[in-house]
């Protein structure tokens, strides 16, 4: 990773007097990566993103986008960024096509052949007035305007909210294609599975502080998952009690429930000695993830 980072923040701080805001956020986003910015609502994801676009100015610290100052070079930065806000409104009286045409004009023109395929994939009807669109359909327009000019950097704040599962899959494919095309993607989310599916690296933010930045693989390895195993017959607790990475083991006759940190290998091999009817793996919640980093009372990740 020798190239200049696409986004670099240094001790980025925004204070609002109360608890909202961000404190000393330092991170770099490298060219061509899909970076997930993960945290619960109100953690500071939107605040961070809005400083990158010069909508709000940091109290301390700073950020660069493509090596430029978001404030002094805002026009140049915006030219290279496709942005989807977390919350937004569109001009209700316009049709989708008029709206996209307006934004395209502000960007010096975007060809229809860059807009129409996006609208088709997202099944977005551009001929109706925006006022009559559902929340999800407005979200699609938001995505189209972010992607349509094929910017080198996509900054997407909670991009999948309001999208049904099929559209989430379409969006997922769009992000992967963007990466193939060499675009950099910075997206925020409060859902770990989504970030795991799409991203190369993940930054986790909580209460305004960046807790960690990890490769998705490493995050998965550290993630604690709750697993339920259903057997055909009752199994002895001793068969599982000494396995590495296993916590909170409960054996109730033919059902085994435990938390697994890292690889599943030992558990699966131990279970394979018995007749397995069903395996349920529960995605860890964000709180579970935080606990693995804080070593809280949820278990000892080692």
């Amino acid at each position, binding site marked *: 990773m020798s190239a200049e980072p696409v986004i670099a923040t240094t001790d980025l701080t925004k204070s609002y007097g109360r608890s909202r805001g961000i404190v000393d956020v330092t991170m770099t986003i490298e060219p061509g990566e899909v970076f997930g910015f993960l945290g619960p609502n109100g953690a500071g994801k*939107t605040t961070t993103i*809005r400083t990158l*676009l010069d*909508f*709000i*100015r940091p109290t301390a610290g700073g950020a660069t986008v493509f090596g430029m100052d978001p404030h002094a070079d*805002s*026009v*140049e930065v*915006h*030219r290279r*960024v496709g*942005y989807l*806000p977390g*919350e*937004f*409104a*569109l*001009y209700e*009286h*316009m049709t989708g096509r*008029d709206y996209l*045409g*307006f*934004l*395209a*004009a*502000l*960007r*010096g*023109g975007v060809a229809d052949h860059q807009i129409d395929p996006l609208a088709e994939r997202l099944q977005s009807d551009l001929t109706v007035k925006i006022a009559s669109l559902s929340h999800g359909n407005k979200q699609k327009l*938001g995505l189209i*305007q972010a992607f349509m000019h094929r910017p080198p950097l996509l900054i997407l704040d909670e991009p999948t909210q309001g999208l049904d599962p099929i559209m989430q899959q379409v969006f997922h494919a769009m992000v992967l294609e963007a990466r193939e095309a060499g675009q950099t993607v910075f997206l925020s989310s409060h859902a770990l599975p989504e970030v795991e599916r799409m991203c190369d690296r993940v930054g986790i933010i909580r209460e305004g502080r960046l807790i960690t930045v990890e490769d998705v693989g490493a995050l998965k390895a550290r993630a604690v998952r709750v697993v339920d195993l259903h057997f055909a017959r009752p199994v002895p607790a001793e068969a599982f009690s000494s396995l590495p990475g296993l916590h909170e083991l409960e054996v109730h006759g033919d059902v085994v429930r435990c938390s697994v940190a890292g690889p599943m290998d030992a558990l699966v091999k131990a279970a394979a000695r018995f007749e397995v009817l069903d395996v349920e793996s529960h995605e860890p919640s964000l709180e579970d993830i935080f606990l693995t980093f804080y070593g809280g009372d949820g278990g000892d990740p080692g």
Partner: protein
Amino acid sequence: MNVFTVNVFTKTMRDQRRALTGWALGMAALVLLYASFYPSIKGNESLNEYFDTLPEAVRNMVGCIDFSSPTCYIQSEIFSIMGPLLLMILAIGAGARAIAGEEETGTLDLLLANPIARRRVVLEKFWAMVAATIGVGVVMWAAIAAFGPPFGLHLGLANLGEAVLAAVLMAIGFGAGALAMGCWLGKRGLAIAVVTSVAVVTYLLNVLAPSVDAVSSLQKLSPFYYYIDNDPLRNGLDPVHALVLVLIAAAGLGLALFAFERRDLTT
């Protein structure tokens, strides 16, 4: 591509096209209404006697009272309150809506995310407000020129134009003030409230100053003084007064640019 949405200015003009049609029709209807009253009021001597009994401040509000003169009639019925009031409501509404309106509805983020500087958005919206006010001003001029003569209201079109220009310039000044307040506060309703209050106070200041010693020295702080004091319908627009009105608008625009450039946007 839709030719009405090539930039922020044209898009703002497009957005207000229906409202502007309404404003233009309303202004024309107002002029027609007042013009049609003229034949029955012209010869009514008792009205003149009645006006003489009114306090000086009220007579200042009305302007002049010799209704046998078409200039005086148009002056007091249209230019003393209703005409400038309509133009001001239009300009203040457009100025407050320009930035604060978009900010409150939530459309501003996606507008400013484009490669367009904040100051350019403010400027283009300012010019859209100016164009709208001038447009309705032209309608006002044309309506008086067209509807007046059939009812015996013959006025010099040049002076009429200068009087309309004075009203338009003052309205733009208040509109620029509303733009500035919206840019500074981010709240449309508050911006309208502040500027409307200023308009009411400065209006009263100008009307009361000649007869109330306590405020007589403050008259020149009122934009209304520069609008009406030279009696533009009769004497034309004083260039210095016109310049002051332009400077008020420029100051509002300057404050708008300054405030908006330095502020965090609200979500």
